């Protein structure tokens, strides 16, 4: 099938799909006037009963804490998948890529990039930690903060050499962080069981709303998820960069 024929097929199918979208959306109520009772309920109880001022965190780490455990392990598994895929395999053909321009070198990073990245390393770490520990108070939490934390080693890579980057972020550190984060989540569930509740039931003292220590179990889970996400993304990054460096050396 040539590209032209394929394009005609695609356009016909896309038009049909657009029509299906139209039929599906037409009976929907106008935007903003209908809302789920579940959402209203969460909004109503989040501050008075759960002492969590960020309702999204209340949903993720308190009301639906068990579902978020699954979400965390989606990421965990995919990082493992990346590590398996990027592993050097014995039957790999070496070198020879027909689409690679010979003799082309990568230009070094400009001074502007280096200085900006260097200046941003410490703020990125601090901001990441802030977002992780304030998940129950303001928008943020383990997932968002973990990604910001993982950006700090990337900034180190941008402002220095690969060796320096490896000194800051070792495989071991990222692995331990990811595993410890995932374990923290499960441990919090076991703590609930030990206190006589259900798995991941929030039984710790709830504290005063709007403070760092509010939300009972939520800040602990946030820190665990932050470690897991930060470590996991760093691991995936290391796997990709390792590949890049090996190719450069060939």
């Amino acid at each position: 099938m040539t590209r032209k024929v394929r394009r005609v097929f695609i356009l016909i199918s896309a038009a049909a799909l657009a029509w299906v979208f139209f039929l599906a959306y037409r009976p929907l109520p106008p935007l903003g006037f209908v809302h789920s009772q579940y959402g209203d309920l969460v909004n109503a109880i989040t501050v008075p009963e759960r002492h969590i001022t960020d309702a999204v965190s209340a949903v993720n780490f308190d009301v639906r804490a068990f579902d978020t455990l699954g979400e965390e392990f989606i990421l965990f598994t995919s990082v493992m998948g990346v590590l398996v895929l990027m592993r050097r395999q014995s039957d790999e053909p070496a070198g020879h890529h027909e689409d690679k321009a010979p003799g082309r070198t990568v230009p070094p990073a400009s001074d502007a990039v280096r200085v900006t990245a260097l200046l941003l390393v410490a703020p990125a770490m601090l901001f990441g930690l802030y977002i992780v520990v304030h998940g129950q108070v303001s928008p943020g939490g383990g997932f968002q903060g973990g990604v910001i934390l993982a950006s700090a080693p990337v900034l180190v890579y941008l402002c220095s050499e690969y060796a320096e980057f490896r000194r800051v972020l070792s495989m071991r550190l990222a692995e331990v962080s990811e595993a410890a984060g995932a374990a923290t989540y499960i441990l919090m569930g076991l703590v609930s069981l030990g206190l006589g509740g259900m798995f991941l039931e929030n039984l710790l003292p709830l504290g005063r709303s709007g403070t760092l220590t509010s939300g009972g179990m939520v800040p602990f889970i946030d820190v665990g998820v932050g470690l897991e996400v930060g470590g996991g993304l760093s691991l995936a990054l290391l796997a990709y960069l390792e590949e890049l460096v090996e190719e450069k050396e060939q």
Partner: protein
Amino acid sequence: MNYLPYAVAAWLFLVGLYGVTSSRNLIHLIMCVGVIQSSSYVLLLAIGYRVGGVAPVFVDIPANSRAVDPVVQALMLTDIVVEVAVTALLLGLAVQVHKRHGTLNPDRLTKISG
């Protein structure tokens, strides 16, 4: 105006799908998958929207303020995590494809070996 977010979601889905089917480079194709996925963010946020509602963060507003639905926002967070997972895995697969076949053009990846 009431249906604009739905239209945007449908448009993102279709334009991403067109990108996936007409792509000449696997990296570009993976980014198009991301575009498709972003249509679900728009749709989820649109479903949770309430006229006159504020963000469901009650730090400095009364606890009984009218706020948008936090449940779909939490679902959207899950959605983003899934997108990260999918993108990371697909990029890993693209690297393997390039190693084994020396090309990222899906049209030239016609050989099957097992």
